[in-house]
């Protein structure tokens, strides 16, 4: 059973309090009508199943009800980080040892992810 740090509650809690919601960072196409059936099918149904680092969407279902992301190693089950919606992961397949926190923070500021913009979708 996982031990998950909720980035909103800022506490570790038991997995029983959370629901997994599948792969993270699946952005809904802004103009669905412009998608071919195949593109729409990819968005709806096709997900990665990597061996190693994977980003997942979870919700603190019986806690604060907030959705957030987890970077998890699917081999060791180690949770490398949890981060709020709209934030970028430090640990990625390209950077399994983690990028410096300052780099990630700088990227966030540059992208303006701190402000929620209309129509911008936090998952993107």
């Amino acid at each position: 059973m996982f031990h998950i740090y909720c980035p909103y509650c800022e506490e570790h809690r038991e997995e029983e309090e959370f629901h997994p919601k599948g792969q993270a960072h699946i952005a809904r196409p802004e103009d669905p009508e412009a998608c071919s059936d195949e593109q729409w099918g990819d968005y709806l149904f096709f997900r990665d199943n990597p061996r190693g680092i994977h980003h997942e969407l979870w919700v603190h279902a019986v806690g604060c009800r907030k959705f957030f992301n987890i970077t998890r190693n699917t081999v060791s089950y180690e949770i490398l980080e949890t981060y709020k919606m709209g934030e970028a992961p430090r640990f990625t397949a390209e950077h399994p040892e983690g990028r410096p926190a300052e780099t990630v923070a700088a990227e966030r500021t540059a992208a303006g992810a701190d402000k929620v913009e209309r129509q911008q979708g936090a998952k993107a």
Partner: protein
Amino acid sequence: MSQSLKQPNRLHEGGRIDRSHTLSFTFNGTRYQGHAGDTLASALLSNGVDIVNRSFKYSRPRGIVAAGAEEPNALVQLGSSEAAQVPNVRATQQALFEGLTAQSTNGWPNVQRDAMSLIGKLGGRFMPPGFYYKTFMAPASMWMTYEKYIRKGAGLGRSPMERDPDHYDHLHQHCDLLVIGAGPAGLMAGLTAARSGARVILCDEQEEMGGSLLDSRELLDHQPAYRWAERVIDELGRLDNVTLLPRTTANGYHDHHFVTLHERRTEHLGETAPLVDGVRPARSRMHRVRAGQVLLATGAHERPLVYGNNDVPGNLIAGAVSTYIRRYGVVPGEKLVLSTTNDHGYRAALDWIDAGREVVAIVDARRNPDGDLVAEARARGIRIIDGAAVLEARGEKRVSGARVAAIDVAAFKVAGQAETLACDTIASSGGYSPVIHLASHTGARPSWDDELLGFVPSLVKGVHAAGSARGVHGLAEGLADGTAKACEALAALGKSADAIALPQVDARYESTACALYQVPHEKPTLRAPKQFVDLQNDVTAAAIELATREGFESIEHVKRYTAMGFGTDQGKLGNINGMAIAARCLGKSIPEVGTTVFRPNYTPVTFGAIAGRHCRELFEPKRYTALHQWHVEHGAEFEDVGQWKRPWYFPQVRPQVRPDATNGERESMAEAVARECLAVREKVGILDASTLGKIDIQGPDAREFLGRIYTNKWAKLAVGRARYGLMCKDDGMLMDDGTTSCLAENHFLMTTTTGGAAGVMEWLELWHQTEWPELDVTFTSVTDHWATMTVTGPEARKLLAEITDIDLDRDAFQFMDWRQGKVAGVPVRVFRISFTGELAYEINVQANYAMHVWKTLFEHGDKYGLTPYGTETMHVLRAEKGFIIAGQDTDGSVTPEDLGMQWAVGYDKPFPWVGKRALSRSDTRRVDRKQLVGLKPKDPKVVLKEGAQIVLDPDHAIPMPMVGHVTSSYYSPTLESGFALAVVKGGHSRMGETVYLPMADGKTHAAEIVSTIFVDPKGARQNV
């Protein structure tokens, strides 16, 4: 019942048992005596009981082999009464208590004379691995018949057939360091961490903590080692930051340092937990520990050697012999032959001779061993035969001799003439396998160490191993390792601890061990006497050799083909030997062959401990509406809807029908439902609809959000109006439905299905938080805050008018309006929503006023024939109107268009709402999709079965093409006919066609495809 009061194998002194405290127990119907401190196994050996079981496949007589969790043979069924039955208990782990009753798990009619053993003897050669599959495969239809007899012949223990009188519980624990195992390394680690002030849990599976210190020949601080252990345990027991858990097995290592510890709290006291101050304590407890760091000090299991007839009672592992002598004061025989590959095994011979019995010879596979223990044995005058091994045991029900010969280990052959030594006990030691099970549970693959001749654990972050568990076998080295690893573990937590001074241990020189697993025999393995590898599953060296010859090369396949390492044993004694034999046969090294994966649980865990208190009335929460008590008092039958208890129907006591009947009879369900249905259609009924999900939605963007999440339009819904809405997933399939009302410009109340409430709430949050965080809207569940009662039927308006200040005029308060006001003097919201097709008012009232309003309605309702109805009547009435139930008439593959509900789809809404794009996918545009239709059985008496398959041509050859199935089906008292809703391929264009429903009983029903609306197609009745 026979009785045996002598304990011929009990020593007069020594051991950790209390000779002044005698306990009597019963094994296979004979009464014996033992002492406090005994295990069932030590007491049986003390009484000279050789045969404790029959083997699984060949029914060979089996005796006790080991002294701990690794015991493969001595599985017993405990319990003197039916309710107290416990299957497959290892006698080596069961403490003796007064009156203990046990019997062998296998053996018919008894273990001494077993009928199945005849098959074992005659058929032994003809029962290779895969025997059952190969023999009983054809004809396949007969397998079920064969299986019954095979199972009777094999059989493990049985479950109790009566309710368990005991209870069990769970405890959630946290600690900085969890130390598993309280032997030398574990005690040192625990002490080091404890003195640093860290929160420590120290658990150990045995009756007493101390591990190998309890039977060690070595001195610590110039005293017997157990004295040191006692001092440490005493100190730990007095520290507040330490939890000591004896009799506690760490049975599973789960994710993120979550470890389940199974504490057996009363198993040593009796077969059920004894009362304490009139209260029965929990029999066992599952500690669910979330540890900061974990230190595995689980020790090592000694490997037996694999030689001919090594399963005959009297063959033991060397360490077990030492344990029985030194810890329990029991010598399990008179004359010992020891076959060893290492110095450590010599302890058994020294302990044996110390106990005053004869050591016939030590047979050492090495040439010229020269360790200190070897020298001690020589000095005691024990005959040592070097460069040799026991080739096979003699005897059937007890060892009578050992055939011994020189062997060439490297060439795997016998190198000299065999001699037979008369003896009644053969102890063997083939080296030590670290107990890596828990480390394996984390998924980390162990690695082979050529010097240690064993697999050592690979460790994930936060897990440490110390002492024998990682192959550090010496006493002094193990103690030092324990304190060092505890310091490492605490450092990983950012805590510091001081290494503590080691007790004084005499240095001891050990000569190198030799790698021997299977002992060669003059005959090839396939024709030699059976050489058992896995005693519990009757897997022999020959079976493994045969498996490799038949092409099984992966050790995981060999395991499954031969069953090696199966069962409650999980390969504790035999796995390494089996891998070594597979490696030899395949011409590979052991690391090349690799190891199988160990999984939880380490030893079997009783279901009671797994369930804890989550059983019986506490298995699942029950939810009651505010009106529940009224329903109970009025005789309702209840139906579970999710966790809710909803009234199903209200059977009434019928007036006396026969003059001789003294009491009226209760209505049947069909009668009650028919009466309730007609009451609603003709007068007025009332339903407790409180369980419907209710979500309060507020914010300037609430209306925009509804437009995106529902398929239909919300832009123009005025304050005071309600609208039915469909909710799809983005694949276009219906997920939930309900009405949403506009309470104020920025304030809406959404209702959901009873079962879908939590899921819809999470769905709304998902879209808001991850896709549209820019929308200013909030969601609050108010399901429990409001009670809902539906007053419906032609007389509803007249009834409600008597007790409300709301203007009920048909034009002032129209269909799909809602109004605020008072009913029975209580503030309410009333919604003109109808799920019955009749005039209906849904009254929402603060839950704690609900009973008052409900009762007031009944005070005024008698004259109108007010009738309470339940979910069954609700279903009949809604189905007569073609109203769907999401999840019953839909199953995640049905679009609003399949339901014929295009009227609830806002095709031209500007925002690409959830589910819209999918409605134009090629698959959703197919004309032969299953579509919702009504079915009218040709025979009105027929009520079609829900789930029944629909075909177009009943005379079609089997398999018939199936074109759909029935989703809802009831008897309608209004239509005086059965009727159904169904999904049928292309159904919307098949109106008037006849379809057929072939049933399992051979009958075929015919039905006509009709509109889904059976009653009042124009909706005039609800709009009055």
